[in-house]
């Protein structure tokens, strides 16, 4: 056994106290929170990889897991996008600039972008599933010359439900990214596509050759989009997704987020479909 070191300085359960710098209302149910650690040393030594998650806590209410959706190059703040659903997310939605929160990050694995060099990447995000896509996409766009063709298909239920509205014009006009937006049903003054993501994807028909598919969204969207990718000839090892599970500790001990012998919080949340095929089907 190791020396009697309670490890208080690196106690993985202790969050960094952080300040909410800005709150952005993305949609009726989604807000983004930009936060920065109060302890400058901790902030300066803080690094993460795209796809890694953090536990955001409102003291007295609890913690919840969200992906850090800013790219690692952003050194002013990290951003979490939160959909209001339960007790903690409701409390987070009440936060205002200046409020104190707790952050435990980074946790989990990250997108294996090192292996994507020279390849085309198709990003597909549905609803709040755009959050993890945002971090890796922005990171890849910053190093666009190292990759092949980059494209994004982002879908939401309605125009109001579409998050990152401030980013959208830039993405639509970007030289390095081909962006397609879609909503489920017709809406007035919507200049983009209408239709479910899997159907739109099939219309776009990206080539599977030398291409990585990165998709994230609600389970039902994942299911059909995955089928669409397979239909188009994408191999399972080239289809990358992130998983969501109820989490508590975030460090692979508390036992609830396991998929077979893997913990989503520790060994995930990023998995290739080929990896998922090896795990028990318990979604």
């Amino acid at each position, binding site marked *: 056994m190791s020396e*009697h070191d*309670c490890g208080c300085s690196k106690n*993985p359960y202790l969050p960094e106290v952080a300040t909410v710098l800005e709150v952005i209302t993305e949609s009726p149910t989604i807000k983004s929170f930009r936060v920065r650690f109060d302890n400058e040393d901790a902030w300066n030594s803080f690094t993460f990889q795209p796809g890694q998650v953090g536990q955001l806590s409102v003291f*007295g209410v609890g913690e919840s897991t969200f992906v850090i959706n800013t790219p690692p190059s952003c050194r002013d703040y990290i951003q979490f996008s939160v959909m209001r659903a339960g007790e903690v997310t409701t409390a987070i939605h009440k936060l205002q600039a200046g409020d104190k929160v707790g952050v435990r990050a980074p946790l989990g694995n990250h997108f294996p972008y090192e292996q994507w060099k020279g390849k085309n990447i198709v990003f597909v995000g549905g609803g709040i599933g755009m959050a993890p896509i945002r971090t890796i996409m922005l990171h890849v766009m910053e190093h666009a010359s190292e990759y092949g063709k980059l494209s994004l298909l982002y879908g939401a239920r309605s125009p109001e439900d579409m998050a990152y509205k401030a980013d959208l014009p830039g993405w639509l006009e970007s030289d390095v990214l081909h962006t397609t937006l879609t909503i489920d049903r017709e809406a007035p003054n919507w200049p983009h596509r209408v239709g479910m993501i899997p159907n739109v994807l099939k219309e776009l028909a990206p080539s599977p050759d030398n291409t990585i598919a990165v998709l994230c969204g609600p389970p039902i969207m994942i299911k059909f989009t995955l089928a669409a990718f397979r239909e188009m000839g994408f191999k399972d090892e080239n289809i990358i997704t992130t998983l969501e599970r*109820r989490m*508590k500790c975030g460090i692979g001990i508390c036992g609830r987020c396991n998929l077979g012998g893997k913990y989503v919080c520790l060994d995930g949340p990023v998995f290739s479909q080929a990896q998922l095929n090896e795990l028990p089907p318990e979604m």
Partner: protein
Amino acid sequence: MSSLLFATPKDLTSWLAKLASDHRVLAPRQEGPSVVYRPRTAEQLASDDIDALLRRATASPKQAMLPQCETLMTFKSVKDAEDPSKLTTTLENPCVAEPTVLFGCRPCDARGFVVLDRPYLEGKFKDPYYGARREATVIVTQACPSAFSSCFCNWVGSHPSDKEGSDILFTAVEGGFVLEVVTEKGQALLEGADFADASDRAADVEAVHEAAAATLPSPSTLTDVPAKVAARFTDIAFWEKETVKCLSCGACTYLCPTCQCFTITDEGSQLDGRRLRSWDSCMTPLFTLETSGHNPRPTKAERMRNRISHKFSFYPERYDGFFSCVGCGRCVVSCPVSLDIRHMVKAAVEGVVLDAGKSGEPAEVPASEKAEEKAPVEEVKAPAEVAVPEAPTAVPTEPVEAVPAESVEAAAAEVVPVEPVEAAASAAAPAQATPASRTQKSAGRTTSRSSSKSKAKKR
């Protein structure tokens, strides 16, 4: 380091009492019908009856390292004098562990900590709370004198005198106890203890260990368990059938020495609050319920599948083939509906959906069930063919047998007035028993076939 020391019961309790001056001494104590680990003071230990200290605890001593509930941190916020909406929040980490002696756990319990060490201490993140307690605790284990009906440590790679996880192992022998030092921590704890050398008692100790091992069921013949349990994962009908009687209560998980799961909740407010860690159970639906309402394990079948798979497939897969089960049998004996993990694992591995009523029991058992007043001889034969010799419930079980000659009312009538007489009779038995009832008893002990014959005869 395997020096042997001898202690009389008095020596042992005095030693513990002395330790209590600078240690938290956790020892079993009888409370109602259950046995509970409690911190004991020197005075209590000095006056404790040694037998009470040797009983097996109803719930595992897991709580010594992993309390039912502990504070991970406290938080306090101070309002800014100028702008009360601004808070300064400070966190405090109460992570401390006092020197502890965990006395009287069983080898399976001690091994339980080894099982917990892997996720808690040997992964990418170390749990400082568990680690601090683990470091500060010396484990003094009692070698089991005999197996309970629910014991199956020999199924999971252990035996009743296993030293793994213990710092000191003691064995009850004629006249007292032989203490074997297992680790340096154990050695250090014994410094200053005035125990006699017991090298000459090694054979006695060995004899006790062997006798205890002989009381266990025959070892498991199951092979390739992790892969086979994993292969059972998608057979949801199997898990549904196995969990028909499960109440989904979670008692098994809280009693288990190896169940590691917990939840984290906040109490209080940002101004003055605390973050708690408390035991949680994978048998409850809330364990995995997501805020969206989606639950990957919505029914008890899926939850039990996870529990069994975790112990016998996922954990071994992650940690070099070790099971996350030490065979203590608490989940079996304390389950309100007697769900038997041995049976479930065996059924999962052996590839048949077992109905325990038939296949899980040895030959003579089903026979006795038919021992009734009507045509006993013919009925006895019928169900005997379904026996599985190395069954998980290899304990010969027998139902309460028929009262051949008496109707229920008659049996009842016989009972009424004779309570005191009977108490006396049972105290003096078997010498005073009538020849007939004697036959009955001995028959009951051998095989039910002969017992039913004897009943037939008697009638």
